[in-house]
């Protein structure tokens, strides 16, 4: 599959601060790539490098096979988390404005947003606004789309509809780069790239990133006491329904629980993506 954008060993320094350090990233046609990282991990700087809004201090950045340029950016679509719609304009006026900006004035408004064309964009429910923003970003048939938390805050059916649109776009040959803190969105992606402190700490499918990582699950009738005990002893403990999940070995957790004479069952279970992510970016050296 053709590579749409690529960073190879790319770095960007601001004075003494290195925001992006030796990063590799690829987005090919037909795939949805998730970019994850804590705040300040370097995700935004990396995207600005890929779009040519910043120059790399070191390494190589390509957009459609060339150094990023205005020409390349015309083939990119972007939907920020704030959507970028004009709330005081109707959907049809938003469409006309975007079409004019990309010099596509003759393109008719797509059917799936035409139902709201006379409504003010700001008056629509968030899920609908997101659908409209997505349709606007697709108006110039971009080959690469960058989306920021595209489905956050949207109800279940609206979210399902948005993922359908996103997948349809990928199936037709565009590539998508999704930046997100939302693990449900991350799990929808074909591949994930996880950044911490300006570096890529891991990449792969969600299953590959979780790998063999385990957590210890504790079920105890006296939930509160078990939590207080583990918490006070410095364990990284999280409530999980009626159970507790601890990022530590069953032996360490079980030892403490039995020393205190708590009646609990302890089981080693597979970590979820969020637990794997937190473990990885909290201790990058161990990743």
């Amino acid at each position, binding site marked *: 599959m053709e590579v749409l954008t690529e960073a190879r060993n790319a770095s960007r320094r601001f004075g003494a601060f290195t925001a992006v350090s030796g990063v590799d990233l690829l987005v090919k046609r037909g795939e949805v790539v998730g970019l994850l*990282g804590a*705040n300040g991990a370097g995700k935004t700087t990396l995207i600005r490098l890929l779009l040519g809004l910043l120059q790399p201090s070191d390494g190589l950045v390509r957009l459609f096979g060339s150094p990023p340029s205005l020409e390349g950016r015309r083939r990119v679509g972007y939907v920020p988390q704030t959507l970028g719609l004009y709330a005081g304009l109707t959907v049809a006026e938003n469409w006309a404005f975007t079409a004019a900006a990309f010099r596509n004035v003759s393109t008719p408004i797509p059917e799936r947003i035409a139902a709201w064309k006379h409504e003010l964009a700001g008056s629509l429910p968030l*899920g609908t606004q997101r659908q409209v923003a997505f349709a606007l970003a697709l108006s110039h048939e971009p080959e690469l789309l960058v989306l920021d938390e595209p489905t956050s805050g949207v*109800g279940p*059916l609206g979210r399902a509809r948005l993922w*359908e649109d996103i997948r349809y776009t990928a199936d037709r040959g565009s590539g998508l780069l999704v930046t997100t803190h939302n693990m449900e969105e991350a799990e929808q992606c074909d591949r994930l790239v996880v950044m911490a402190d300006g570096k890529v700490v891991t990449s792969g499918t969600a299953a590959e990133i979780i790998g063999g990582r385990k957590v210890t699950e504790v079920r105890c009738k006296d939930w509160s006491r078990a*939590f207080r005990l583990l918490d006070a002893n410095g364990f*990284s403990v999280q409530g999980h*329904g009626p159970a507790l999940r601890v990022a530590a070995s069953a032996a360490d957790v079980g030892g403490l629980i039995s020393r205190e004479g708590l009646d609990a069952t302890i089981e080693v279970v597979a970590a979820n993506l969020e637990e794997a992510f937190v473990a990885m970016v909290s201790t990058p050296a161990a990743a």
Partner: protein
Amino acid sequence: MRWGLEDVRVRRGRTLALDGLTMPADPSLVTVVVGGDGAGKSTCLDVLVGLVEPDAGTVRRPAKERIGYVPATAGLYTDLTVQENLDFTAEAYGLSGSEYHRKAAQIAERVGLAGARHRLGSQLSGGMQRKLAVGLALLHSPDLLVLDEPTTGVDPVSRAELWRLISAAAAEGTAVAVATTYVNEAARAAYVVLLEAGKALASGSPDDILDAVPGAVGAIQGAERPTPRSWRRGAGWRVWAPTGMLPDGVRPVDPDFDDAVVIAALARQRER
């Protein structure tokens, strides 16, 4: 049910913001309200803390000074330092003396700001601000802690720290009610309300909700929509068969919370 909402209705103009909603918030437990924007989450919490009077139904809550509440967009003063925020909140609740100093030190430690007490609220990261806001709401050891989207836009590391703080409050005996748009946070709750258009699509413990998913759920690869009741999951599809009979070629899977939420919404649509 110690605290909470029972069959509550709230009218906003011609629409019902809450339509017969029941939501318990019991001591030592975390209740999570999950829903998209406009589902009624904030209204639900506003009724619980007494900011909105319901048009019908029953609300049980402790006395106002026994509630800790963090709204979605505030919870601290960004032009005050961490210490000034603690002092101001303490004064508002009539806390003073050694008891206050002990508690303030404990909370500053707990939220990771013990070494940054003289930093301005505005100089803290988004995640730090949210942690401090929750810490401030816990300063007077409330009986009921109510948090409106404390983790929205917060990165996963800060989110885990916030949840540790929230669970710790419940472990100390506080009743906690949390609103979120992140479906996977429901798994952290003892009791979950899936809210959509002011109504509970489903409620109960996370296990109860998963066990109550009607029919069968399956997975299949491919670009074409396999049945009308299908939605994308990664490069493939999830399929829901209300009758329990999955079409040929669809591999049965155990539904997860994401599936349960979509199915609850589809089932509601089917009833209409």
